[in-house]
């Protein structure tokens, strides 16, 4: 995919010695054919006349005709779909022997499932699902009800999936995913696919009943023609077809009910998801029967086969569409195996089920936690797109809650806000846009997400400054104390604190995703944990401020009857949410100091390089944070200052890991109804315990035993490493 320009306008070129001749009124057209012809004689194969505008884009766009690695127009087997059909590549019916016909259709169904999963996993539709010749000519199958209804529901399903992914418009991998030009996605009558499918399903279930019925009753049912001719296989084939048809039906229902506005179809979708999973199970179990009754044994290994029977399916040719997949060079696409495809759909359905069982919580903070938790299982594009279109519809949360009301709830704004003019403020509106963008970004894949989060940090910083200025202008200078008298000022203050809190949350997630994406090398861990530590301190501070402010409101409300002096006398407790962050802070600081001490005393985890220093690596890793002043006054120098004097002797005296462990232990009871956070606290405890022990060992024997090797692993937590000490 090098087809996009790399060079912008030929900047990297050595300046041409001859100025280009401008075409204008004075210029005269002349025939240069003979000149060109003469010049051509001088050119040998592979040479070119080097023009100023010849850039990498042009170079990489050049194709060598008839080179199979580049020329997607090379005719492989058939020149066209029609030629393939004429040559009998996709007969209807597949065989006049009805048993073979049924076998072949099941193979087609299975191979299509494998193609569909391959498409979802990032290959083009044209070279996967639409490598099926039957799908490409919708009318040809009309005489064959079973094949016809299956092709229809496949096309309708593809359309529904493309629709959700293109509505999500995340611009990550979907430009290839949604590319469907030249493909007959809208077969005539495809919208009636369900009723046709139901009719076929009904027929086959009657055939199944008939073959299972005792011979006495058979006479009554005699008017029912069996599915195929071999009565020993009738039951097996009926069952194999039924679970495949029912899976398609329920899957289509899942996709459509999930798209109902404001999440109204989620409950129904869950029922269909459960049905899909049980049909998938039947499909899987049908494999033994299909393999044993298959006509030919497969030359493929079990891991490669794309059908349950192991037979090669009839009617597929991936090369037919390779010209449609231009501008990419032709590639042989590796279709997922049938087993892997079934696994993929199981995962997809589980991911969709998590979305459907979500309570549509109106609290923004919990939405964020849900999305982050959801992303931990690395859902694929289709599931993520569904989550995104559920979260953001018509510019509202779940298509239901206006963004300003989401913000005011999240920022704990006082009740008066509901109809307050503040929501019409230009920058408050922009803030709403940022919130929507943030939600969308959090639904994208980790690699893309991190890049986008890095970029929006600046926007969040800027909106904070703009809001601050706008509020100042409107409500006058803000005092530090939130006074009862000025509601506007109070609103402004709350919003500003909340914006800062979100900014640091985004920054923290940005840093954290770096671990997930393996962007940091061990010699950089020290500065990364240090940066995490300073960001977390700010995040905890802002979260605390927000909670104090909201408590303030709550107190004032309930205070009216009581004596206020009693309230202030009550001893103050740090809220659990802040303490939760506090354990992260302890771990980050503990790891920073342990790594710093290892560098200072053991001279490990340093990486001198010939061309630059750690300073440059620091700038590069945290460039986006630094540009947005997150936090203020932080530089490589401050990192050096806080780590240069780290020594094991002092670390053991003040053990950060012990603090983390203690707080985590105490906090568990506060989150007893939140299993995700309890699990996180447990992980934190484990990391803290391991590192506490490691710290003691290094301290006790480290200076005596030079063969001591320390490495870091992420076996207990995705971004907090544990130190592993070994004697080499």
């Amino acid at each position, binding site marked *: *995919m090098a087809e996009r320009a790399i060079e912008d306008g030929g*900047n*990297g070129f050595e300046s041409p010695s001859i100025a280009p001749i401008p075409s204008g009124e004075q210029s005269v057209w002349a025939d240069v054919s003979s000149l060109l012809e003469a010049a051509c004689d001088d050119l040998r194969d592979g040479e070119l006349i080097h023009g100023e505008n010849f850039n990498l884009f042009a170079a990489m766009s050049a194709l060598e005709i008839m080179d199979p690695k580049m020329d997607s127009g090379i005719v492989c087997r058939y020149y066209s779909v029609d030629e393939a059909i004429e040559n009998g590549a996709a007969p209807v019916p597949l065989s006049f022997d009805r048993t073979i016909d049924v076998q072949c259709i099941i193979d087609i169904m299975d191979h299509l499932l494998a193609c569909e999963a391959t498409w979802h996993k990032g290959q083009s539709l044209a070279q996967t699902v639409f490598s099926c010749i039957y799908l490409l000519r919708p009318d040809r199958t009309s005489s064959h009800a079973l094949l016809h209804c299956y092709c229809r529901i496949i096309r309708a399903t593809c359309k529904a999936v493309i629709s959700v992914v293109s509505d999500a418009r995340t611009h*990550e991998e979907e430009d290839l995913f949604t590319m469907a030009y030249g493909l007959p996605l809208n077969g005539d009558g495809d919208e009636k696919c369900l009723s046709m499918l139901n009719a076929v399903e009904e027929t086959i279930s009657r055939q199944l009943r008939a073959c299972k019925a005792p011979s006495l009753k058979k006479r009554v049912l005699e008017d029912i023609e069996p599915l195929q001719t071999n009565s020993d296989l009738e039951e097996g084939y009926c069952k194999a077809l039924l679970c495949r048809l029912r899976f398609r039906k329920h899957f289509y229902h899942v996709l459509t009910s999930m798209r109902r506005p404001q999440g109204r179809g989620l409950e129904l979708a869950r029922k269909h998801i459960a049905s899909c999973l049980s049909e998938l199970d039947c499909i899987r179990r049908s494999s033994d029967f299909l393999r044993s009754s298959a006509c030919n044994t497969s030359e493929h290994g079990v891991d490669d086969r794309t059908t349950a029977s192991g037979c090669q399916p009839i009617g597929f040719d991936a090369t037919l569409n390779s010209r449609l997949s231009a501008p990419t060079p032709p590639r042989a696409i590796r279709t997922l195996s049938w087993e892997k495809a079934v696994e993929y759909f199981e995962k997809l359905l589980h991911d969709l089920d998590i979305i459907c069982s979500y309570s549509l919580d109106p609290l923004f903070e919990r939405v964020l936690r849900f999305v982050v938790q959801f992303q931990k299982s690395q859902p694929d594009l289709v599931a993520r797109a569904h989550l995104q279109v559920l979260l953001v519809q018509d510019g509202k949360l779940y298509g239901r809650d206006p963004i300003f009301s989401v913000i005011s709830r999240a920022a704990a704004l006082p009740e008066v806000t509901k109809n307050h003019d503040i929501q019409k403020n230009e920058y408050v509106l922009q803030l709403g846009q940022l919130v929507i*963008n943030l939600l969308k970004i959090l639904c994208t894949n980790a*690699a893309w997400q991190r890049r986008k989060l890095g*970029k*929006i940090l600046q926007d969040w910083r800027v909106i904070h400054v703009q809001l601050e200025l706008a509020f100042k202008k409107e409500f006058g200078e803000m005092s530090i104390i939130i006074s009862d008298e000025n509601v506007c000022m109070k609103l402004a203050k709350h919003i500003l604190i909340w914006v800062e809190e979100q900014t640091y949350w985004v920054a923290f997630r940005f840093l954290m995703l770096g671990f997930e994406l393996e*962007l940091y090398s061990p010699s950089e861990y020290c500065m990364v944990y240090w940066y995490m530590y300073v960001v977390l301190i700010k995040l905890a501070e802002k979260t605390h401020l927000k909670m104090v402010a909201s408590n303030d409101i709550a107190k004032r409300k309930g205070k009216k009857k009581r004596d206020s002096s009693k309230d202030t006398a009550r001893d103050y407790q740090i809220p659990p949410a802040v303490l939760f962050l506090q354990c992260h802070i302890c771990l980050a600081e503990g790891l920073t100091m342990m790594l710093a001490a290892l560098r200072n005393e053991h001279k490990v985890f340093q990486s001198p390089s010939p061309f630059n220093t750690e300073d440059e690596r620091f700038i590069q890793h945290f460039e986006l944070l630094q*540009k947005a002043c997150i936090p203020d006054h932080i530089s490589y120098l401050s990192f050096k200052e806080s780590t240069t004097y780290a020594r094991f002797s002092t670390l053991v005296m003040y053990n950060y890991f012990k603090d983390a462990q203690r707080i985590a232990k105490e906090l568990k009871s506060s989150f007893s109804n939140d299993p995700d956070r309890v699990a996180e606290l447990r992980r934190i405890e484990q990391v803290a315990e391991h590192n506490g022990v490691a710290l003691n060992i290094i301290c006790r024997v480290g200076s005596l035993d030079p063969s001591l090797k320390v490495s870091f692993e992420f076996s207990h937590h995705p971004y907090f490493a544990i130190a592993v000490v070994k004697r080499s």
Partner: protein
Amino acid sequence: METTNEGETAAVEVEASDIEYVSYGGEHHLPLIMRLVDEELSEPYSIFTYRYFVYLWPHLSFLAFHRGRCVGTVVCKMGEHRNTFRGYIAMLVVIKPYRGRGIATELVTRSIKVMMESGCEEVTLEAEVTNKGALALYGRLGFIRAKRLFRYYLNGVDAFRLKLLFPRPEIDLSLPMMASRDDSHMHTDHIPPEESSELHQGL
């Protein structure tokens, strides 16, 4: 792309001093580079892609010879990119029997030196996340993994964008105040041009 050597092909007896490094010297070197890259990397490049690099930046391309046989090469470019003058390492190949002897390091170091002397502020490249050999080599030279590019190569493998920043005398980190943007990020931000190239590192 295969990265390291042991076992695959019998390693050749080579003294470091036996390896001769030369800057791109003209048309006679072009087929040598093309054959090496073609053999070791999966992506198809037309002759024009090679010409683009070696004609514009011959001083950034190097070849390694052992007793007259070309065993490694590096192909690079440099130019203005979003207000920075940056170098780009497009292809780096050392044939299997010669790997693990520092030939790739020497080749790429020579290119980086020329880039630095020519006023580049940074050097970038992409490498497959599975290419441990390349990642370790560039890590030793001071490159960081700036970002991960999801399914960057058509074989479905992610890539890392690696970056090497040269020291600067002065660094300005003041907050550039952006004018508010009307358009949303989700819609305006397409893949930046440089991210759609897919040049490889095979070593």
